[in-house]
């Protein structure tokens, strides 16, 4: 998972458009219980290097629908903003 840490630009997951994919680069530390949520994201399969596809986002800055490791997840926007990906 190191080798991907090249110069390619990292963008938050929310910057991906509908149907675009990227590989998880890092998860920004949140405040407070942020650590617990990072773990939770990992447990749901969003580990570094994992390919994520954004299917759509709910209107008015709602959550994202993403595909990860063959499963479909709903991800709150605040959370998604902290996930940085390398765009494919």
């Amino acid at each position, binding site marked *: *998972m*190191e080798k991907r*840490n090249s110069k390619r630009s990292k963008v938050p997951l929310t910057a991906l458009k509908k149907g675009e994919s990227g590989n998880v680069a*890092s998860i920004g530390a*949140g*405040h*407070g*219980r*942020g650590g*617990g*949520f*990072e*773990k*939770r*994201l*990992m*447990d*749901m*399969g969003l*580990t*570094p*290097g*994992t390919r994520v596809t954004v299917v*759509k986002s*709910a*209107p*008015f*800055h*709602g*959550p994202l*629908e993403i595909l990860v*490791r*063959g*499963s*479909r*997840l*709903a*991800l*709150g*926007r*605040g*959370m998604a903003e902290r996930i940085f990906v390398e765009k494919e």
Partner: protein
Amino acid sequence: MNKKKLLIALAGNANVGKSVIFNHLTGLHQHIGNWPGKTVERAEGTLHFKGYTIDIVDLPGIYSLSTYSLEELVSRKYIAVERPDVVINVVDASVLERNLFFTLQLMELETPMVIALNQMDIAKSKGVQVDTKKLEQLLGVPVMPTVAVKGVGIAKLLEKAIETVEKKQVKKQPQVTYGEEVEEKIGKLMEKMKSAQLVYPQRYVAIKLLEGDEEIERDIKRINPEIVSAAKKLAGEIECIHGHCCSTVMTSERYEAAGCIARAAQKLVSPMKPSKVERLHNFTTHRVTGYLTLVFSLLLLFYSIFTFGDYTSGMLSDLLYGLEPFFASVFGTGIVGSLMWGGVMEGLIAGITIVLPYIIPFYIILYFLENSGYLSRIAFLMDNVMHKIGLHGKAFIPMMLGFGCNVPACLGCRIMETQRERLLAAFVTTLVPCAATTVIILGLVGDFLGIHWALALYIFNLVIIFALGRLAFRVVPGEPTALIMEMHDYRWPHMKTILKQTWFRVAEFIKIAFPLIIVGSLALKLADVSGVLETVASVLSPVTVVWLGLPAITGITLIFGVLRKELSLVMLAALLGTTNFALVLTPVQMIVFTLVAMLYIPCIATIAALVRDFGWKKSLFITVFEVAFAILVGGIALRLLTLFL
């Protein structure tokens, strides 16, 4: 071989069909309780098979065995401490990789296990073909393909599980092998713990220490704090090598292993075109059609439940009230008779006419929506709105339930992840007007002032919910959690499981609410018979008459409305001596009365439900706050409304 006992635990991700398998195995011999001291549900059942008496425990659906949620902690402790003879790991064949991630963690707990490879049919329709033999070989654990909703493979699964126990297979299951540098550190830690008496397997403890698991750290600190600090140092070294924190590295490697096994055991045949379920998903989560569907289905839900409920409830109460002459003949018409009938029986009737017509259909529909997958789509669509009050999308579900009855709604707040969010969700839920409140709103304001006023009150109620929700979110310490939720594919739910889940919920409701409804009803009758009501009315008159501008007699209704909410209007009519409220109440008085009844704590059964999950202190606080708030708003409304009306 006779009367041998076995303990089997079911474990797996959420929505993989675990409860369906549980129901197949245990039939009617099951009961649901709580884990001791926890608000986590524990379903248990027994069955007899091949001379064995088998206890089956259905562990909560979880994605990992860390300490993220109470459910995860409870499950892991159960497996390590109670040591079930075998764990049946239910795996969703259509999402193999993520499910195997959990399987690998179970294996690290070194428990004997069997895998139920479930939802083979859904996997097939998604174009996923899993080679069972290959999977078995790669994992070193017996694998049995099942289609639980159709009952396929269940008997064989049980046989396999027993076989595993009988063989007492001592051979160690292959486990995840982490990277060299990680393995070396695991080894070092295991060396240090050699002599320690541990609840969890040694390797597991070493792994969890490296991952910084709080619970395990606490345990080990008691034995030897040096081990914890050594683990911290080793974890730091791993972080240096990889540039990610140690737990991230290990989770990644575990997922890597799960991915490898999944890829080797499954063949992906890309489906030709988006399937029906796929299109349904797109339609129901679309920014336009999704919300239309949501509004439409909620309206349909409430309309059908209230229509059905109203009709059946009327019929039932006619039927049950037919017993009155019989009661009179047994207990007489004196004090005893009127206490027996007006207290106990009327309370019982009230309970029955709520449960059968409203609560049962509500739960059936709710579980249908949940098991089919629609509830998670609702949470997806409503996440944004719920965030305004500091909660995430899932909290919309108990709120929705609250419109039916606040008691199950408060209990339903357990779907939230943290205790803080459970409390916030429950608080908001108690402000939702339940079916009984709706009767007051429609029967008083709706009938006498017009439906637009009733609607205005509903909208005002929503505004209050948002305002107070926001306030509570600010005041209660802690961080908000974000939505992370799986939206599994739509599927046709298993009806028997739905009925059973409904039955358990209803039983729970009866247990909490019925005694209170009866006691409340008895107290009410007793007060009536002994003539205390007048005194209560005059004691409350500073609030009711002076501040709220209502007739003194309404004080009684408001006090006893807590005992029997649905009676508020009937009681009001009885006390005022007419059902034509327009003769005795001004429009402003009607609105003020309804407002207060709408906002103060729903009823004694709801308070009991709150106490059960949050303890006395918090429940009392919510109760007192809501009563005070309702009175405050009522008084302000009076003063404002008299300016306009």
